[in-house]
């Protein structure tokens, strides 16, 4: 027994120390998430109550019984001043605006960047910086002349009028320019020798190479277009062009003396309006990150 030449098992200290750093990190993250998730959650719970309750008691923290009813009314009941628009139509309009806006921006800015990077234009750099300075002139600044122009062209109450004035994009041009400049020059030269003209090179080589970039910009721009409020408000007076974002306002506004606003429906619509951008970002976030961080040349 005294023969303990055998190695005594090393005493492994019981080490489950709490790493306070990690705990702190998580606390901050959890707090942040709560902060972000609370408003939509509140919207959801409140949307499950009837208009009277909400009007009287304000935001609700508990689930009521009217959730289905409010959503149904918001989406399928004809409403508005003309009693012809329902939530589905507005949803469609929002999609048209979001997609049109994003696609338009991508097409325009890709072509602008292509011209700036690949063609020996005399004033390519100058042109780029001029485009870039338009970042200082967002729509809000030039809204009156823009409105005037669209109105003169007779494009009020059209999808064209809704989308086209918004699609010039300095940001998009900038990102595509940076990307194109990182594509090796020899690729364009090889394509030239291979008999690909400027258009073929663009379509066969540059566009496929820009895939992830396009996806990333599409996501940003779609969400941005989806959330447009000011410009649609100005340019479309016809209710059949209303987007979700505007529709919410419209419900709250239908305020005659005897009626209390349908806050429940408005919140239901707000939640519907939130879903597509969230879904797109969640599903495409890999592409998104890839597009902005790496480029597989």
């Amino acid at each position, binding site marked *: 027994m005294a023969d303990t030449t055998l190695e005594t098992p090393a005493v492994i200290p019981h080490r489950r120390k709490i790493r306070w750093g990690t705990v702190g990190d998580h606390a901050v993250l959890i707090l942040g998430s709560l902060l972000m998730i609370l408003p939509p959650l509140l919207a959801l719970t409140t949307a499950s109550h009837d208009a009277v309750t909400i009007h009287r008691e304000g935001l609700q923290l508990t689930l009521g019984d009217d959730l289905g009813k409010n959503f149904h009314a918001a989406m399928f009941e004809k409403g508005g001043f003309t009693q012809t628009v329902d939530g589905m139509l507005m949803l469609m309009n929002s999609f048209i605006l979001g997609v049109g806006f994003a696609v338009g921006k991508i097409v325009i800015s890709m072509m602008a960047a292509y011209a700036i990077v690949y063609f020996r234009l005399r004033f390519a750099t100058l042109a780029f910086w001029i485009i870039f300075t338009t970042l200082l002139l967002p729509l809000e600044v030039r809204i009156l002349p823009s409105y005037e122009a669209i109105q003169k062209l007779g494009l009020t109450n059209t999808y064209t009028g809704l989308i086209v004035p918004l699609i010039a994009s300095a940001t998009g041009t900038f990102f595509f320019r940076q990307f194109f400049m990182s594509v*090796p020059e*020899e690729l364009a*030269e090889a394509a030239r*020798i291979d008999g690909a003209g400027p258009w073929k090179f663009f379509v*066969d080589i540059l566009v496929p*190479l820009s895939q992830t970039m396009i996806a990333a910009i599409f996501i940003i721009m779609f969400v941005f277009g989806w959330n447009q409020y000011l410009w649609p408000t100005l340019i479309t007076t016809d209710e059949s062009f209303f987007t979700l974002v505007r529709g919410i306002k419209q419900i709250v506004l239908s305020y005659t003396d005897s009626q209390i606003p349908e806050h429940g429906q408005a919140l239901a619509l707000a939640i519907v309006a939130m879903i597509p951008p969230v879904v797109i970002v969640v599903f495409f976030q890999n592409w998104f990150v890839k597009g902005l961080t790496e480029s*597989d040349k």
Partner: protein
Amino acid sequence: MAQVSLEGIRKVYPNGYNAVETTSFNIRDGEFVVLVGPSGCGKSTLLRMIAGLEDITEGVLKIGDRVVNDVDPADRDIAMVFQNYALYPHMTVRKNIGYGLKNRGIPASEIDAKVQDAAKMLNLTEYLDRKPAQLSGGQRQRVAMGRAVVRDPALFLFDEPLSNLDAKLRNQMRIEIKALQRRLGTTAVYVTHDQVEAMTMADRIIVLNAGRIEQIGTPSEIYHNPASTFVASFMGAPPMNLIDAQVDQGQVRINGYNRVMPAPAAHSGPVTMGIRPEDVTLNADGDIRFHVDILEELGAHRLLHGAIADQPFTVMVNKDHAADIGETGISLKPDALRLFDMETGQKL
């Protein structure tokens, strides 16, 4: 297949930089010509003018019998292999090789057959459905070759196609490219700054220096009869020894020695004398004293670096030849002496 002729070609870049001075030469049908020179001497510029990727400032360029100065690269009947291969990253090997044919409106079945042929020739058959990112450097290089070969052009242009490969692969590809060019009989212009590539691959070498042609000749001519001290020191590893000497009455004398040797050229006065390190033998009794500082083992050979009469000098001896640091005598092979003008560096 075609011959190429450059008549008074010159290149001035838009910023005013004179990249290629007025240059004329002919490349024969089926010939493998290597453009070699130090970095920035205008090799790529010259090649890119032939390809049509750079405008020709002045002069006439003919491929075959056609003046191509204003012909688009696609219509010059050329194919080019780039240093970074410039493969289309999103296309499979098959599409990469076939892209040039597709753009020329060749029917899909024919493209497929040609791509198969090219792939077979380059041992790429099993990689046809891979993307470039899934290939090794050597395989990518082959794909770039395939893209050139498949179109069966009149002229191949190579811009340092092997410089991204490791030494072993480089040696192997060097032989393969040369063999392929031989087999196809296509005229080729090959740019490199590696003088070993130039020596081993070329039918004729064009040595460029600062936008000017220093010498045009076969590898043997360039090696044995360099036209200038620039060529002498650029071609060959180790380079030719260049030391100060005097010529008097048909005899050369290295400065600081009395020993005279018959001069290979009529001249008198100070000259630069050149001799290849392998044309020097160690000779304990030799009256030219060589002080060895460094011994470099190359396996088959040994390099002895040192000085004679305080001028740097290198001797190459066979591996079984004993050699040691310190002073020894040497003798120079008389018919290997070359003389150059002290001032201009031109061969006398």
